[in-house]
C-alpha cells in the first residue's frame, strides 16, 4: 500500500521510495526505506498529511505520499 492510504493514528514501515518523484530533501529528512512512519493528523480532505517519520515531524501533500510504499504495522 502507499503512504496516502494510511489513516490517522496508524503506523507503518517505509518499503520503497520512488526516486524520480520524491525530492532529495524529503529523503534527507528521514523518508528512507526501513524507517517507521506514523500519520499524526490530516487536514480537511486528508491533504496535506502530518507525519512522524523516524522521529521527524513533517507535512507532505497526498500527491507526494502516493509515491511512497509502506507496510502497515499493527500496534
Amino acid at each position, binding site marked *: 500500500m502507499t503512504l496516502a492510504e494510511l489513516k490517522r493514528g496508524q503506523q507503518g514501515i517505509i518499503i520503497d521510495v520512488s526516486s524520480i518523484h520524491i525530492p532529495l530533501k524529503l529523503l*534527507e529528512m*528521514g523518508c528512507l526505506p526501513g524507517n517507521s512512519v506514523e500519520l499524526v493528523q490530516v*487536514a*480537511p480532505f486528508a*491533504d*496535506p498529511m*502530518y507525519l512522524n517519520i523516524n522521529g*521527524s515531524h513533517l*507535512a507532505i501533500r497526498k500527491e*507526494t505520499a502516493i509515491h511512497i510504499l509502506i507496510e502497515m504495522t499493527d500496534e
Partner: protein
Amino acid sequence: MSKQINVALIGNPNTGKTSVFNALTGLNQKVGNYPGITVEKKEGICKLPRGVKAHIIDLPGTYSLNASSLDENVVIELLLNKNDKDHPDVAIVVSDVENLKRNLLLFTQIKDLQIPTILVINMSDRMAYKGISLDIAYLEKQLETKIALISTRKNKGIEELKELITHSKELSTKPCMDASTIDEAYFNNLRKAFPNQLLYKLWLVITQDVNFGKTDRKTFDTVEDFKTKSKADLKRLQQKETIKRYQFINETLKKGQTIDLKTAKDLRIKLDRILTHKVWGYLIFGVILLTIFQAIYDWSSIPMDFIDSSFASLSEWVKNTLPEGAFTNLLAEGIISGLGGIVIFIPQIAFLFLFISILEESGYMSRVVFLMDRIMRRFGLSGKSVVPLISGTACAIPAIMATRNIESWKERLITILVTPFTTCAARLPVYLIIIELVIPEGRIFGLGYQPLTLMLLYLIGFGAAVGSAWILDRIMKFKSKSFFVVEMPNYKLPLFKNVALTVLEKTKAFVFGAGKIILAISIVIWVLGSVGVNDKYDNAKSIITEQFDANGFSDIQNISLENKIERYTKDLVGANAKNSIELSELQISDSLHLKIDSFKKAVINDEISSLKLENSILGYIGKAVEPAIRPLGYDWKIGIAIVSSFAAREVFIGTLSTIYSVGSEMEDDENKTIRSKMNSERHPHTNKKVFTLASGISLLLFYAFAMQCMSTLAIVKRETNSWKWPILQLVIMTGFAYIVALIAFQVLK
C-alpha cells in the same frame, strides 16, 4: 592575540541556531545582505576567555549540503571557498536534542569537508522530559568531534561552548565516515584526475544544481568532464549517499543514544489535536488574527498620539527659538515634519513584528501552513504562501524573500506577484489617518467602526491577493514540479531575547531603510514648495494684503473667525470664574482685541502661504496631475503626495505634513497636528472639505491596490530575475487601483 577566530553556525531550521547566535553575541550583531543577493547575512562578535574574540556568522538553515535554494547555496559557497574572508576556522553544527538523527546528516557532510567542527546539542533541558539520554564520550569518539550540550533557554553550556571555540585548533579534521564507497570506481577516477583536491568538495561541485557563482570556478571548470553521468544517475548516487550516511548515523546512535518512550511526555500531541483540528484550528487562527489587528489599533494609539504632538511642538519650538531664515524653515518644516512621519510608525511596526515573531518562534506558523495548504492550492498558491502573505502585512520585501522555501516555481512566482496586495506597514499610517478623518467613531457589537474598517482593508488586501492569484493560476500555463515538505517543529515558549531582538532589528531596518527615503523626499518636497515659478510667488504678500484691503474677509472666513472668537471669549470668562484672580472688563476686552488681531493675521498669513504654495514648483506639479485625479476626488495637494509616494507609500503622510506645515501658519493648538490640518483642509473654490467619506474611501482603496514601492519592485526584479514581472505588477496594480478608486468616489459622492 589579535587574530579573530572565524566561526560559522550551521544547522537545520528550527534547531535554535539563532538562539545560540544570540546567546553568543548578544547585542554585538549586525544584519546585512550577502553582496549581490538578498540572502540575509547575520554576523556578530563573541568575546571568548583570555581576550580572544570570535567572529560569528549565522548561516541560513539547511538540511544538507545539497543546495536547492539560494539560501542554502550561501552555506556551501562559504564552506568551499577558502579565500572568502568569512571562511570558517571552525564550524559549529547546531542540532536540537530531539532531532539528532536528522541533524547528524548535515554534520557528517561538513566533516567530510575536513573543517574543524563542534557539535552543539541544543534544548538539552528537554532531555529528561523526552526520556533521552546520551553517551557523550562515545559520540565524540565516533563522530570525531567535541560536543557541547547546551540549553539556550536555561542559559546552560554557553561558557563551555566558548571554551571549545577557544581551543578549536585542537579539533580533529578527520571525516567520521567514508561516503565514496557508494561508487568506488567513479570516485577513484575523480581522485586520480584531481589529486590535490578534496574528494568530497569535487563531489559537491558536480552535484549542485544551483549556479555556483564565483567559487574558484576556474579550478573546477574541468570538472565538467566528470558530469558524464546523467542527471538521474547523479541523483541516484546522492540518494545512495544519503542512505549510506543514515546507516552510519543509525549505528552510532544505537549505542550513543537511548530513548525511553515510557517517560517521554508529549505536549505536541495534545496541542496539535486542537490547533490543527478541522474546525477549532481555523477558528483559533481567526481569533488570533482578529486579536492582532485590534491590538495594533488600540495599543499603539497612545504612543502614536504622543509622538504626533511631540514632533509638532518640537517643530514649533525650533521655529520660535532659532533665528528666522531658510535654514530654520527647512529644519522645522522639512526635516522635523519628515522625521515625525517616520517615527510615528514605530509603535505599530514593533507590535506587528512582535506578534509575527511570537507566532514563528512558538512553532505555530507551521501549523497554519498545514491548515491552509489545501485552501491556498485552490488559488494556485501553497500553504507556505501564508507566511509571505502574513509577513506581507509587515513589509512586502521580507515577505517576498520568504517565498524562497516554496518548492514549486509557479506557486512561488504567483506568491511573489500577489504579495504586494497585502496591507503592509507602510499603508497602515495612510489608512489610520484617513480612517480617523472620515470614518465615524461609533461602535457595533463592542467593536469600533474604525478598527473594523481597518480590518476590512486588511481583508480586501488579502482578498485581492488571493483573487489575483486565482486568475494568474488560470492564465499562466506553464507546469512546474511541485513538492511540498514542511517541518512541524515542536511547540516552544518563545524566548524573550529572540523576540526582542527580532522586533528591534526589524524596526531598525524600517526606520533606517524607509526612513532615509522619506527624509530625502520630505526635504525635496520642502525645497520644491519653497521655490517660486512666477511673480505671484514673490509678491504673494502684497497681493493678498491688497485683496484684503479691498474686499475684506470672505463670508466663510468671517464665520470661522466669529466661531473662534466666541470660543476664546467663553474660555476667558470660564477661566475668570474658576480662578480667584478677577479680570476687569477692560482687561478682558483688551485681551480680546489682541486675540482678534492675531486671528486675523493668521488668516492673512495662511492665504499668503497658500498662494505661495500654489505658485511654487510643487504647486505646478500638483496642478499638472490634478485633472487625472480630480475624478477620484483628490485635489492637487493630495496629487503631490500621491506622486511622491510612488517612491514609498509611507511618504504620503510625510509629504502632506510638509505641504500643510508649509501652507499653514495658524498658531492655535488645534491646528498643530497633521490630522487636524488635514481635517480643516478645504477646496479653495467650492469650500467643501477635501477629506470626505467619498474621497477618503477612494483614497483608501487607491492605496490598497496601487503598486507604490520602488524597493518592492527592485526585490521582485531580483527574485524573478526579470524586469517583466515587476513592470507588470506596477502597471496592472496601479491601473486597477485607479479604476476602483474612481468607481468608489463617483458612487459615494
